[in-house]
């Protein structure tokens, strides 16, 4: 998903300060549309409390899905407040858009949106504590300094801890947000360090942190059987037979609507334990009206794509110059067909939600990336006012984009309403894999034209994608192209056009949406063009990037060729590209990609055995997300995870459909990466003088094409379809 990196100019930052409950200083900060902060609803993006004992409590407003935001945003406040990190406590904020603004996890946006703002919040608090100390001592504030939660006056040797000053500071006027002085980043003590995740101690001791662990008094457990064909309806079910199973308290036919991301038809089994509910499901027999999607299959999609590729495209995406004419005049024309499959998110914690629906109020405990839209969906579906719905955010056992949707939330609410009791709904793994919002597959029919010197003069992609709502009108969610994908704007004749296959299968954003698939196609084909023109793949890319400059405008997805040169140069240096002596059967591949405001270049070293078996030896990563890495430990972890995630997608992930049903049910056929396949990932950051941006996604896209380009370097065989088919790499 995409969200603006910058605050809309019509909104302004405001700061509110005062006495905290129980004494001490409260600092709230956020955004408002109103002229005066006093009459504005306080949309707090930060909420800080400094207690008389010196403990600083910071509310974490966004969902934690493993991206580390619960630790990294508070680090910025603590840095500018100038307190010891050990005195900081972090609590999960409740879901309330009126108080906290839009709370979500997606698009690697949180750091870009909050970096400056969080620092200002901390700095304002520090200014107030200094002012309180200066007033108490009768000295100018300018003579006071701070260190680790203490205000100091050097000349007199006076010192006072923040805790002892907090209540006095609360009585002072709120400082002007824009006027508070920020630290010189060279003096940072917390930001830029390696800070461990705030919940680490709870995680390693098995504390109940996750949605699946929620316990509510009087709670019962539910499973929910939906039609294996997306959008199918219940005709009838053997409710009485299932009701007779041990522990079963109720069986309910739930009627849903047509929206695949809302409440769908299904049968809920409610029991006194989850295992009994799931076991009773084995006796459930449902007659389904499967609907039109039952006619769709992966095989059919491939046949339709092949047919559409031979017809004119129907959807223009971008046209610069005249690619068709330039191809006709090119010295060399290279043509290739690339494709990639639908894939599932497969977070390790299956979808779940606990809901307590009463006549007058609804309470929800949900691991979700999008709590407020979930709240709205529940209110709308149940016909209750949004004000009567409370959603508690619970730590997510992985997100990857799956929990941007709230289907499980509305299901839990509907089942609780039917059962008249608090319900914990938990999907099993097959449910999770059969009812995802998949990364859509795609087919690309590419042509590249080179002049006699090997320079790229024309680029044409006929993209066969999928059309939403079983129509061929607009791209499915996460199945589009923008036309700004590299080599956009560096080749004079560039044409991207599309044709659509009507699709009834739900799709959605998977970590680095669109980029995770397009990178494979574009960066592999660029490699083909380099080799066709007799050029080194790095050198060809450098020539394509050309002089350092910014292509496009802030409104048109700008691309800074200089930043990409920077990471490419760095990864070449670190990996020893072109210089390292590699054993026979081992090679290197390179790729770069820009996504989510981050510039990443990666080199993969891999070997291919005579059997075709691939071993990835190592990945080098160079990334540029701006001038500051907030949490070096979290940042490296995100990059390593994203890179290995991308390798897993390339090596083993595919969801196939037959008769409108997903065929893979578990990790036997849908393969996640395991320890023996996990190569070392060496991470380097290039600190360019640009604003700090997010890191959940942009390291993922380059790795699949870099791997496939390494395979080409070893075998001379070009991988044009994911997941990689090892049988095609066999040399004996």
């Amino acid at each position: 998903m995409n969200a603006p990196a910058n605050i809309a100019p019509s909104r302004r930052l405001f700061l509110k300060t005062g006495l905290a409950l129980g004494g001490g200083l409260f600092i709230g900060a956020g955004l408002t549309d109103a002229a005066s902060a006093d009459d504005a609803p306080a949309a707090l993006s930060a909420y800080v409390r400094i207690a008389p004992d010196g403990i600083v409590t910071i509310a974490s407003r966004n969902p934690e899905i493993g991206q580390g935001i619960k630790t990294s945003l508070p680090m910025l406040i603590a840095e500018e407040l100038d307190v010891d990190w050990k005195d900081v406590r972090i609590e999960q904020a409740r879901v309330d858009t009126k108080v906290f603004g839009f709370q979500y996890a997606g698009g690697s946006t949180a750091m870009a949106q909050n970096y400056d703002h969080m620092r200002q919040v901390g700095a304002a608090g520090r200014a107030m504590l200094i002012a309180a100390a200066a007033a108490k001592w009768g000295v100018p504030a300018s003579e006071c300094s701070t260190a680790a939660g203490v205000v100091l006056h050097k000349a007199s040797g006076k010192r006072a801890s923040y805790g002892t000053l907090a209540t006095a500071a609360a009585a002072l006027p709120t400082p002007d947000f824009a006027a508070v002085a920020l630290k010189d980043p060279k003096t940072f003590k917390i930001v830029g360090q390696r800070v461990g995740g705030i919940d680490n101690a709870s995680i390693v001791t098995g504390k109940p942190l996750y949605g699946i662990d929620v316990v509510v008094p009087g709670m019962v457990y539910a499973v929910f059987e939906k039609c294996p064909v997306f959008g199918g309806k219940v005709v009838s079910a053997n409710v009485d037979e299932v009701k007779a199973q041990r522990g079963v308290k109720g069986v309910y036919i739930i009627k849903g609507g047509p929206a695949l991301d809302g409440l769908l038809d299904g049968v809920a089994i409610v029991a006194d334990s989850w295992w009994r509910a799931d076991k009773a499901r084995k006796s459930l027999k449902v007659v389904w009206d499967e609907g039109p999607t039952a006619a769709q299959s992966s095989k059919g999609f491939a046949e339709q794509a092949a047919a559409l590729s031979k017809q004119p495209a129907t959807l223009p995406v971008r046209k610069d110059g005249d690619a068709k004419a330039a191809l006709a005049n090119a010295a060399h024309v290279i043509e290739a067909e690339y494709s990639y499959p639908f894939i599932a998110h497969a977070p390790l914690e299956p979808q779940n939600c606990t809901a307590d629906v009463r006549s007058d109020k609804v309470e929800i405990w949900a691991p979700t990336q999008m709590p407020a839209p979930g709240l709205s969906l529940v209110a709308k579906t149940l016909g209750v006012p949004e004000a009567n719905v409370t959603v508690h955010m619970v730590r997510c056992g992985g997100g990857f984009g799956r929990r941007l949707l709230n289907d499980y939330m509305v299901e839990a609410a509907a089942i609780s309403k039917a059962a008249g009791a608090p319900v914990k709904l938990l999907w099993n793994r097959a449910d999770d894999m059969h009812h995802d919002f998949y990364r859509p597959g795609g087919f690309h029919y590419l042509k590249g034209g080179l002049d006699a010197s090997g320079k790229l003069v024309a680029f044409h992609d006929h993209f066969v994608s999928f059309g939403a709502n079983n129509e061929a009108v607009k791209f499915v969610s996460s199945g589009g192209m923008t036309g700004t994908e590299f080599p956009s704007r560096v080749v004079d004749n560039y044409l991207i056009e599309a044709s659509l296959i009507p699709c009834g299968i739900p799709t959605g954003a998977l970590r680095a949406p669109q980029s995770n698939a397009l990178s494979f196609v574009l960066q592999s084909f660029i490699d083909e063009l380099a080799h066709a023109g007799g050029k080194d793949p790095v050198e060809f890319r450098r020539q394509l990037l050309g002089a350092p400059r910014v292509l496009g405008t802030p409104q048109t997805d700008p691309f800074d060729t200089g930043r990409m040169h920077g990471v490419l140069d760095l990864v070449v240096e670190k990996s020893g590209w072109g210089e390292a002596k590699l054993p026979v059967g081992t090679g290197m591949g390179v790729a770069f990609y820009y996504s989510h405001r981050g510039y990443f270049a990666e080199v993969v070293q891999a070997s291919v055995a005579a059997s075709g078996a691939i071993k990835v030896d190592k990945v080098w990563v160079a990334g540029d997300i701006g001038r500051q890495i907030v949490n070096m430990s979290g940042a490296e972890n995100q990059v390593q995870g994203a890179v290995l995630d991308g390798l897993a997608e390339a090596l083993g992930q595919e969801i196939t459909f037959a008769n409108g049903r997903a065929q893979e049910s578990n990790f036997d056929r849908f393969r996640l990466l395991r320890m023996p396949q996990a190569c070392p990932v060496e991470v380097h950051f290039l600190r360019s003088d640009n604003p700090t941006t997010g890191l959940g996604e942009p390291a993922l896209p380059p790795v699949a094409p870099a791997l496939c380009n390494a395979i080409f370097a070893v075998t001379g065989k070009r991988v044009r379809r994911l997941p990689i088919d090892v049988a095609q790499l066999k040399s004996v």
Partner: protein
Amino acid sequence: MAMKLNVNGSVRDVDVEPDMPLLWVLRDELNIKGPKLGCGVGLCGACTVHIDGVARRSCMTPISTVGAAKITTIEGVGDSVIGKRLQKAWIDHDVAQCGYCQAGQIMSATALLQTHPKPTDAEIDGAMAGNICRCATYNRIRAAIKDAAGVAVA
């Protein structure tokens, strides 16, 4: 069927069907939430516990097969020197991202170090291959195991 279970050093009474998996006895009957559901069929390791010191997938272990054996979960593994050391190494290396699989990872790592105090990379691969980390924190899991074992991290 009524039975007594020895869990983390305490004797607990349960009365459930003999085919109920240990995972669900722990989670829903005894409110021990550390072992997690990931796949339900022994493919991911999120439910790993020790039965008499051996790492087992609790989602595939019918309660009737457990008998008087000693069950250890992530909640109790810190009572052992190796378990405690691994928990500390996991914190020192800031291993977790979402953290959901890490209880199972630590249980498998503890079982490994109990039989192989100085594991090789191949032994780590072998012992940990059954535990999936969807966030792919494998580089750090390996480093944390080596650190806890006092083996040089490459």
